[in-house]
C-alpha cells in the first residue's frame, strides 16, 4: 500500500509526519503546478469548484508516480467539499486508474466508521497507537500554523527584504526534525524565536485581514503567494483560518485567535445561520476586524463557491454599516497573476488614501 493525498498548504508536512509515525508507506504528490491544474481542469466536471480540479490534478500526479491508495477527507454538507471524495473516485476510475480510496469521514457520521477507516490506513497499529500518533503530530501541526501566523505579522516590518521568508524556512526545518512531544515543545519555542529575531524597522503599516474559502487561503500556489506579496508591500496581515483550525473546527483555541463562537456571534446581525463551508466565518471575521479598525479586507473564493457567494452577497450591507473596504477575488483555472496583482495594487492605494484622509480629518 502506497498512500497519496491532495495538497493543501502545509498538509503535506502534517501527513508526512503522521504517516511516518504510523509506518504507513506514502507518496507526496509533486507540488501543485500549472501542469497539475491543467490536468485537473481537463478531467474534473466543468462547473465544479476550483479546489476539486486541483485535487484531481494532484491525485493524478500521485497515482502516476506509483501510489495505489488515495486518502481523502469526507464531509456531511451542505458545502460541496463533502462530496469531493466521491467525485474524485468516480472521475479517476473513469480515466482508468485502479486504486483503493480511503475516505476519512468526520466522526459525526459514526465513530465506528471513522475508527474503522483509520485502521484501514494503518493496519499494523492499534487504535491507541493511532490516537497517540495523531495527538503528538497534531501538536506539531499547530506549531507550524503558529509560526505561519507570526510570519504574516512580521514580514511587513522586516528591514531587509526576504529575511522573514528565510527565517520561516529555517523555523519549519527546526520543527520538522522534532519527534517527541518534548522536542516539539522546545522546537516550537525555537522556531518562534527565529521569526522574532528578524531585524525590524518601525513603520506605519496598513492592517489587512484575509478571509474566504479555506483552500484558496491555505494553498499559496492558487492564491499566487498573495501573503508574501502583501507582506513585501509592508502590510500587516491576519488570516481567518489556519490548517489546524480547519481540520478541527470545534477547537477551543484556534490559531487565528478568539473563538469560533465569538466569530459566529459577530456575524449574526448580517448572516444569522451557518451556510456551509466558511460563509458565516467570513462575515464574522470581517465584522470583528472592522471593529478593530483594520484598513481593509481581502476576500478569496473559488468561482461558484456557494457559501462564499452568500457571504459576498452580504458585503454591501457590511460596507454600508461598517465602512470597511473589501476586495473580493474570484479564483479559478482561468485566473492570471497579473490581473490579481493589478487589482491588489489599486486596493492598496485605496486603503492608503483612506487612511490619509482619516488622519487629516482627525
Amino acid at each position, binding site marked *: 500500500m502506497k498512500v497519496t493525498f491532495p495538497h493543501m498548504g502545509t498538509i503535506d508536512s502534517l501527513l508526512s509526519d503522521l504517516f511516518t509515525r504510523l509506518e504507513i508507506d506514502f507518496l507526496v504528490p509533486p507540488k501543485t503546478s500549472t501542469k497539475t491544474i491543467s490536468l485537473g481542469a481537463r478531467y474534473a466536471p466543468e462547473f465544479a469548484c476550483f479546489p476539486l480540479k486541483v485535487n484531481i490534478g494532484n491525485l493524478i500526479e500521485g497515482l502516476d508516480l506509483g501510489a495505489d491508495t488515495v486518502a481523502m477527507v469526507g464531509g456531511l*454538507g451542505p458545502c460541496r467539499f463533502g462530496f469531493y471524495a466521491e467525485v474524485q473516485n468516480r472521475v479517476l476510475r473513469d480515466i482508468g486508474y485502479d486504486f483503493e480510496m480511503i475516505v476519512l469521514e468526520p466522526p459525526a457520521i459514526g465513530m465506528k466508521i471513522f475508527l474503522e477507516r483509520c485502521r484501514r490506513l494503518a493496519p499494523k497499529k492499534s487504535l491507541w497507537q493511532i490516537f497517540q500518533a495523531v495527538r503528538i503530530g497534531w501538536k506539531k501541526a499547530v506549531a507550524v500554523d503558529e509560526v505561519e501566523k507570526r510570519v504574516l505579522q512580521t514580514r511587513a516590518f522586516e528591514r531587509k527584504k526576504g529575511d522573514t521568508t528565510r527565517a520561516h524556512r529555517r523555523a519549519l526545518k527546526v520543527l520538522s526534525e522534532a519527534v517527541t512531544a518534548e522536542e516539539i515543545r522546545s522546537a516550537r519555542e525555537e522556531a518562534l524565536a527565529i521569526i522574532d529575531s528578524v531585524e525590524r524597522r518601525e513603520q506605519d503599516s496598513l492592517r489587512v485581514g484575509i478571509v474566504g474559502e479555506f483552500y484558496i487561503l491555505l494553498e499559496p500556489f492558487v492564491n499566487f503567494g498573495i501573503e508574501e506579496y502583501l507582506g513585501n508591500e509592508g502590510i500587516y496581515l491576519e488570516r481567518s483560518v489556519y490548517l489546524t483550525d480547519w481540520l478541527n473546527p470545534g477547537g477551543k483555541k484556534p490559531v487565528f485567535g478568539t473563538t469560533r463562537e465569538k466569530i459566529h456571534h459577530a456575524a449574526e446581525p448580517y448572516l*444569522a445561520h451557518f451556510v456551509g463551508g466558511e460563509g458565516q466565518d467570513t462575515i464574522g471575521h470581517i465584522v470583528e476586524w472592522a471593529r478593530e479598525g483594520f484598513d481593509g479586507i481581502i476576500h478569496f473564493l473559488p468561482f*461558484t463557491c456557494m457559501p462564499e457567494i*452568500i457571504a459576498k452577497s452580504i458585503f454591501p450591507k457590511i460596507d454600508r454599516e461598517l465602512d470597511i473596504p473589501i476586495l473580493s477575488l474570484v479564483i479559478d483555472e482561468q485566473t492570471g497573476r497579473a490581473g490579481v496583482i493589478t487589482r491588489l495594487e489599486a486596493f492598496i492605494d485605496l486603503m492608503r488614501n483612506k487612511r490619509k484622509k482619516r488622519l487629516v480629518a482627525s
Partner: protein
Amino acid sequence: MPKIGVPRALLYYKYFPLWKTFFEGLGAEVVVSPPTNKRILNLGTETAESEACLPVKVFYGHALALKGEVDALFVPRVVSVEGKAYTCPKFLGLPDMIKALDDDLPPVLGTTFNLRQGWRRFFASIYELGSHLTRNPLKILRAFYNGARELKIFDQKLREGSLVPEALGETDFKNLANPTLTIGVVGHPYNIFDSYVSMNLVKRLHRRGAKVLTPEMVPPEAIEESISSLPKSLFWTYEKDVVGAIFYWLENNMVNGIIYMISFACGPDSLIQVLVEQEARKISPVPLMPLVIDEHSGEAGLVTRLEAFLDMIDRKRARVH
C-alpha cells in the same frame, strides 16, 4: 389586513399551497409576484451577485418586484426538510441575502425551518412565524394544520401525474393524454416550471407529442430505495429527487429519454451530474441530455438541442420497430 408577499421563485414551487393557506388562516392577504418576465429577470441579474446561480437571481427579481406592494416579504430559511440532509446552502442564507439588498424592501418575514433539530423545534418555528400575525397559538396550529393538508393534496396531485403549475392552479398546463413518447425532465422545479427561465421546455415537449414525467411524480419511498445502493449518501434533499427519479425511471423502463436541466453555477448539480451520467449509463441505454441554462441562454440554442435530441430518440425507436 396585512399583505404578505411571496416571491414566485425557488421554494414557491414546492410549498406554496402550505404557505398560502397558513397565512390566509391567520387573516393575512397573500400576494404573489407576477410570473417571471424580462423586467423581473433584469432586476435580479442587476442586483444579485454576478456569480450567484440563475434561480437566486430570479428570486431577487421577484422580491424586488413586490417592493411597495406588500407589508412584508416572506423569505423563510429552509435548512432541512428531512432529518439527514440539507436543502442547498443558498436557501440557508437567503433571508440574510435579501436583507442585505440596498433597497427599501419591505421587512423580511421568515423563520428557520430545520428538521435536523427535530419536530419540536419545527413547531416552535411555526409558532414564531405565526406570532407575527396572531397571539393565539391554537389559531396558528389550526392554520398550519390546514396548510399541511393543502400541501398533502398538492403533493398527491403531483404523484398522480399533474405537473407543478397545474397542481398550483394553472389550467392550461395539462400533461398529454395520448403521447407518442415519454420524456423524463429532471432538475429543480423552480427552473423547469418557470416558463421564462426554462424557455417553455415542458410545453415544447408537449407540442412534440411527448408526455413529461418529473421527479415530483415518483413516490418518495421509491426515490429513497433507488438511491440506497449509492456508496455515499447524498446530503442535498433536492438532488436526491433528481438522482432517485432518474434511476427509478430507468430501472422501470418508463421513459424514452431524459432531459437534465441544470442552472449554471448550481453547486450541487455540478457534482451530481458526474454521478448521474456514470450510473445511468450502467442501468440503461436510454439517452440523457444535460441542458445548462443561465440568464444568457438563447431560445434558439435550446430549441436546436431539443430537436436534435428528440430526432435522435425517434430514429432510435424507428430502428427498434
